[in-house]
């Protein structure tokens, strides 16, 4: 099977502080991956490293078998898209223009967006239920709507790899589910990697979960392999009970108070 992202011995430090230590992971097409771990464990830094938002060390992250450091930003943007944490846009762009920004990696500096771009943008705006909002200003939207706009922008980028950095942490539960469903339904020919806070959401949506603690991979595997009493106890310092979710049959975490 083709490995779309290979992480081999990735280390990362800010100044003298070690954030990530010797991370080795493979990500394959067709899967939804969740990265979980306590605050400050290095989840976001990991996402930034594998998307080159922060350049990693040479020869530690490979995308389609090439060192990520050798890609130009614009070419990389055709392979990997990212929804960063807390995107706050306080300029009055309308929704359509924001989604259209997803097409900019495909256009040269002075080239205008063409009808093909417009078709692609419309397709994904309809898929994310925001076509009716196209004329609205981004500053007028609710949190849930705004995050759907970001989803449409990312999908318009038409990349094989989509990275989501805590995309749902400030949304109400129905929007969290709706948002993650968008990506789950598209995963068949993509790699989706999401940093998630909510263990139960991670458990429900993921094919594979990676538990990071103190910059190292503490556990990886299917939800049942990762989400167990021992792992949660040792990483989160919290006693929990794990039951089977009656509908999805995946593990469900209940904290013991």
């Amino acid at each position, binding site marked *: 099977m083709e490995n779309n992202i290979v992480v081999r011995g990735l280390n990362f430090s800010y100044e003298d502080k070690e954030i990530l230590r010797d991370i080795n992971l493979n990500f394959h097409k067709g899967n939804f991956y969740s990265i979980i771990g306590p605050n400050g464990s290095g989840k976001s830094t990991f996402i*930034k490293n594998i*998307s*080159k*938002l922060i350049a990693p060390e040479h020869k530690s992250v490979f995308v389609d078998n090439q060192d990520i450091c050798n890609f*130009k*930003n*614009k*070419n*990389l*943007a*055709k392979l*990997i*898209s*990212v929804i*960063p*944490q807390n*995107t*706050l*846009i306080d*300029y*009055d*762009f*309308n929704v359509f*223009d*924001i989604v259209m*920004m*997803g097409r*900019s*990696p495909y*256009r040269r*500096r*002075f080239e205008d967006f063409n009808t093909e771009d417009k078709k692609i943008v419309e397709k994904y705006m309809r898929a994310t239920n925001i076509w009716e909002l196209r004329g609205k200003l981004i500053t*007028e939207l609710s949190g849930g709507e705004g995050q759907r706009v970001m989803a449409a922008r990312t999908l318009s*980028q038409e990349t094989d790899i989509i990275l989501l950095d805590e995309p749902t942490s400030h949304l109400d539960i129905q929007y969290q589910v709706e948002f993650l469903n968008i990506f789950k339904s598209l995963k068949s020919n993509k790699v989706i990697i999401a940093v998630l806070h909510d263990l139960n959401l991670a458990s429900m949506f993921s094919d594979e979960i990676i538990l990071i603690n103190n910059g190292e991979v503490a556990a990886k595997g299917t939800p049942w392999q990762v989400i167990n009493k021992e792992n949660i106890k040792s990483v989160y310092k919290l006693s929990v009970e794990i039951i089977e979710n009656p509908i999805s049959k995946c593990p469900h975490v209940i904290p013991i108070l």
Partner: protein
Amino acid sequence: MNKFINKKRKTFFIILLIAFGALAIVAISMGSANITPYNVLTTILKSTPIIGKYMEGNVSNTHFLIIFMVRMPRVIMASLVGMGLAVVGASFQALFKNPMADPYVLGISSGAALGAAIAIVLNIASTAMHLSVITLFAFLGAVGTTVLVYSIAQVRGKVLTVNLLLAGCAVSFFMSAMISIIMVFNQEEVNKIVFWMMGSFNASSWNNILLIAPIVFIGAIIIYIFYRDFNLMLTGEDNARSLGVDTERVKKLAIIVASMIMAVCVSFSGIIGFVGFIVPHMVRIIFGPNNKTLIPFSALVGAMFLLLADTISRTIASPAELPVGAVTALIGSPYFIYLLIKMKKRS
């Protein structure tokens, strides 16, 4: 109204361009010598190589001299500086993702002022290449300050915009302190320094224009080429980078180009506030934040705005001349407040 304007952007731009031409002709006709806008138009047409042959009547020599040697350079100069300030303001507001940014946030004005103050105090009257030494020193001060601020803000090849703003602020205060000290020890020159800092176009000449025009125009075009990158950067640096923008390169380039524009503008005309801050805002309120529209419209509106302000400053209390920076603020702020209130009512 907004939708209508947005659909007809090109038409609107041409209308504004014609309005600018008309404003320029009226501005040239204004002043103590009795010249009508019609005189201005015929004199200009008469003096144009091919069209001139088909024009009847004579052009008076004094009119010719006043129009071409005194007033026109000043009108062109004010327009060029207005254009430069507004384009730099628009690009800085995008670059710093901060609506409070203006062309002077990197301390370039105080650097230029310090250079000018030193030249004034040293009393070097000579000129080099048709440039006064004051202008030369101001230019060096402006460029030196930008280099200093940039190198302070740079950490391992990366420039954080917050660091740039803070470094600009700190250096700016330092330079202003130096100017105050220079003024205290050279009280007989205080007037000259203060007047230089308030900004004026009364020393405009064709030689100066030949130096400024290419830098302002080429600089504005380079900034315009990057309009899409600026749009993406307005949504946040991480977003811009994930959409393929090499943000560090864009920042570096924009700062170099903008500083060149600012250095020539400030060193020839002094510190004219407000234009670079308010014009991009006015344009943004009317046409929206897209830099594809914002940059060219800011350029044109900036030129018109400063031309209008300069014309008012030299005619309203004639023969005295008001500082043009005061006029820009006096006519600019009420209009800006009006736009803000209108916006507030709409939303």
